[in-house]
C-alpha cells in the first residue's frame, strides 16, 4: 500500500511537471512543422510568464494575466516571424536574440514597475492564480483503497491549465492531420514550392503557424507564473523551452509521441526530486549530483540509441523565397 501511494504521488507530480513542457512542445510542433525552427520557445514562455504575473498582480485576475501572457508571446512570435519569414533572416540567431532579450527585459521591467528586485509581487489574492481544482467527491474517494487514491491524487487536484494541456494534444493532432489547414501546414514545412504552385501563400501560412505557437507558449508561460508558482522570478523557465524542443524532436514531430516524451522527461524530473537522499536497495543513498544529472543522462541515452532516426520537416530552417 505504501509503495502504491508513492507511485500514485509520483505520477501526479509527473503530470504537474509535464503540463508547461507539453504546452511549449505543442507550440514548437506547429512552428517546426511549418518550417520555422522553434528555438524561441524559451523566450516566448518567459515573456508570457512575466506578462501574466505582472497583469495578474495589477488587475487581480488570473484570466487577464493569461490574456496578457498570450498577447506577449504572440507579439514575440510575430517579431520572430518578421525577422525570419518576411526578411528571411537566420532563424537560430533571431530566436536566440529573442531569448536573450526577454531574459533581460523581464527583470528590468519588473524592477521598474514593482521595485522588488526583478520579481513581480506575490500573487496570493483571490482569483490572481489558477488554483487546483478538486473534483467532486475527491476527498471522500480518498478512503476507498485502490481506485480512490488514483481518482483523488492523479485525476483531481490539478489546476485548470493542466487539463487544458491534456485536451490540446488530441486537438493538435486533429488540426494537423484532419483539417485542410493542417495538411497545408505540414506541406509548407516539407515542400513550400509545391504549396506555392498550388496557389497558397507560404509566408501567410508560416505566420499563422508561429502565431499559434505564440498562443500556446503564452499559456505555458502563464502556467508557470500564475498556476505552478505565485509570481515571476528571473529566468524562471530554467531551460524548459529547450527541454520542450528536445521532447518534440524525441517525439519525431508528432503530437502523441511528443506527449509521451514530455511525460517521460517530467517523470525523470519528478523521480529525481524523490530519489534524493532516499536509501535504495543494494546501492544505498545515491549522491545528489548523480540524481540531478539523471534526467539529462536519460535524454542523451534515449536520443542516442532508442528512438531510431528522427527526420525533421524537410524545409525546416530554410526561409522561402518566391521565384519571380
Amino acid at each position: 500500500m505504501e509503495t502504491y501511494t508513492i507511485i500514485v504521488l509520483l505520477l501526479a507530480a509527473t503530470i504537474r511537471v509535464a503540463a508547461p513542457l507539453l504546452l511549449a512542445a505543442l507550440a514548437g510542433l506547429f512552428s517546426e512543422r511549418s518550417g520555422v525552427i522553434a528555438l524561441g520557445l524559451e523566450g516566448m514562455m518567459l515573456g508570457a510568464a512575466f506578462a501574466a504575473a505582472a497583469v495578474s498582480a495589477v488587475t487581480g485576475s488570473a484570466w487577464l494575466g493569461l490574456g496578457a501572457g498570450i498577447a506577449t508571446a504572440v507579439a514575440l512570435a510575430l517579431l520572430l516571424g518578421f525577422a525570419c519569414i518576411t526578411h528571411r533572416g537566420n532563424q537560430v540567431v533571431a530566436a536566440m536574440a529573442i531569448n536573450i532579450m526577454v531574459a533581460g527585459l523581464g527583470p528590468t521591467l519588473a524592477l521598474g514597475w514593482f521595485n522588488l528586485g526583478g520579481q513581480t509581487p506575490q500573487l496570493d489574492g483571490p482569483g490572481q492564480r489558477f488554483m487546483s481544482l478538486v473534483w467532486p467527491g475527491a476527498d471522500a474517494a480518498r478512503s476507498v483503497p485502490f481506485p480512490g487514491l488514483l481518482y483523488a491524487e492523479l485525476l483531481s487536484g490539478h489546476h485548470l491549465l493542466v487539463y487544458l494541456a491534456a485536451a490540446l494534444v488530441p486537438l493538435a493532432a486533429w488540426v494537423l492531420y484532419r483539417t485542410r489547414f493542417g495538411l497545408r501546414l505540414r506541406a509548407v514545412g516539407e515542400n513550400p514550392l509545391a504549396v506555392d504552385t498550388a496557389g497558397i501563400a507560404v509566408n501567410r501560412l508560416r505566420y499563422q503557424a508561429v502565431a499559434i505557437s505564440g498562443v500556446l507558449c503564452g499559456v505555458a508561460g502563464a502556467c508557470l507564473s500564475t498556476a505552478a508558482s505565485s509570481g515571476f522570478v528571473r529566468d524562471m523557465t530554467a531551460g524548459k523551452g529547450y527541454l520542450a524542443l528536445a521532447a518534440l524532436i524525441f517525439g519525431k514531430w508528432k503530437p502523441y509521441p511528443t506527449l509521451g516524451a514530455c511525460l517521460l522527461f517530467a517523470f525523470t524530473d519528478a523521480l529525481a526530486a524523490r530519489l534524493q537522499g532516499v536509501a535504495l536497495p543494494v546501492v544505498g543513498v545515491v549522491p545528489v549530483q548523480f540524481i540531478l544529472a539523471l534526467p539529462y543522462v536519460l535524454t542523451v541515452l534515449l536520443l542516442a540509441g532508442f528512438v531510431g532516426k528522427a527526420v525533421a520537416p524537410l524545409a525546416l530552417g530554410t526561409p522561402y523565397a518566391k521565384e519571380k
Partner: protein
Amino acid sequence: MMKFPRLLLVLAAAAAAAALHAAPAREFSPAIVYDFGGKFDRSFNQSAAEGAAKFTKDTGIAVREFEITNAAQREQAMVQMARRGATIIVAIGFTQASAVERVAKQFPDVKFALVDGVVDLPNVQSINFREQESSFLCGMAAAMASKTGKVGFIGGMDIPLIRKFALGYTEGAHYVNPAAEVFQNMTGTTPAAWGDPTKGAELARSQFGRGADVIFHAAGATGLGVMLAAKETGHLSIGCDSNQNYLHPGSVLTSAVKRVDVAVYKAFAAAKAGTWRAGQTVLGLADEGVGFSLDEFNRALITPEMEARLMQARADIISGKLKVSEYRAQ
C-alpha cells in the same frame, strides 16, 4: 616643440600632488554594492539596504549605492566608487569576493567590507554569519511543531554555505527529538537553482508525500515555491535570510533571519568612528547577527512552551553550554 608636453607633465604632477595631499582630509563617504536581485528583493539585499538607510538616518551621511545588473559591473562599480573618494565600500554577497580582491589591491587606502565571503587582504573586512545557530533554532521549532516526527530541508545550489544551514537544522531537530527524521534536498548544482520556484514546489511536495510536515528552505527565490506548496497542502514552512513570515501568514512557522542590515550598519559605524578593523568578523546569535523571527504573522504557531525552549537554547548557545557544529567543506 617638446616644451609644451613637458609643461603639461609638470602641471599634472602638481595636480596629483595636490590630490594626494587632499586625500587624508576628505570627508567620510560610505558606499555599498548590491548583488543580483537588487535593493528590493525581499531578502538578502533588501536587508542590506535597510542597514544603509538606518545609517543615513542616524548620521545624516548619504550612502552611495550601486545595483548590478550583470557580473562585469561589480568591479567597475567598485573602481568608480573608490576613485570618487569612497572611504568604505561594502560588497554584498559571496559572488563579489573576486571583484573585491582585485579592487582592494588597486586601492589599498580604501576600506572594503565583504558580506558572506572571505578575502584575506589588509584593507578588507570579511563579515560572515553563524547561520548554523539560527538554523539550529529553526530545526528545534520544526521538530516541536511536527506531528509526524519528520521534517524537511530544501537547499538551493549545493554549496558549503547551504550545507551549513542543513547541518545546523538537522542538529536542532535531533536536539528536540533524537528520533526525528530529516529529509534533505538540494535544488541543483548551478546558480539556476536559486530561481526555480516550480522545482522548489515539486521538491516540497515530494517531502510532504514522504510524511514531512514542516520544511525549512535556504534556496532564495526557489524557496518561494516551497512556501507556496506548504500553504497549498496545509503544511508548515520556515523562511530564510529575511523575515518571510508575512508571505503566507499562518503557514510560515518562523524565519531564520540573517541580519545583513546589522552587519552593514556596524561596518559603516565602525569606519566612521575609526574603530574599523580588517580581518574576519563572524556574527552569531550573541551579536544579534542571526536569529529566528517572531511577529504577529506567526504568533499563533509558536506556543509559549516552544518559545521558552527556543529562548533557553538561544541562551545556552550564546553562553557556550550548547555547541552547534559548523559544516566544513571537505
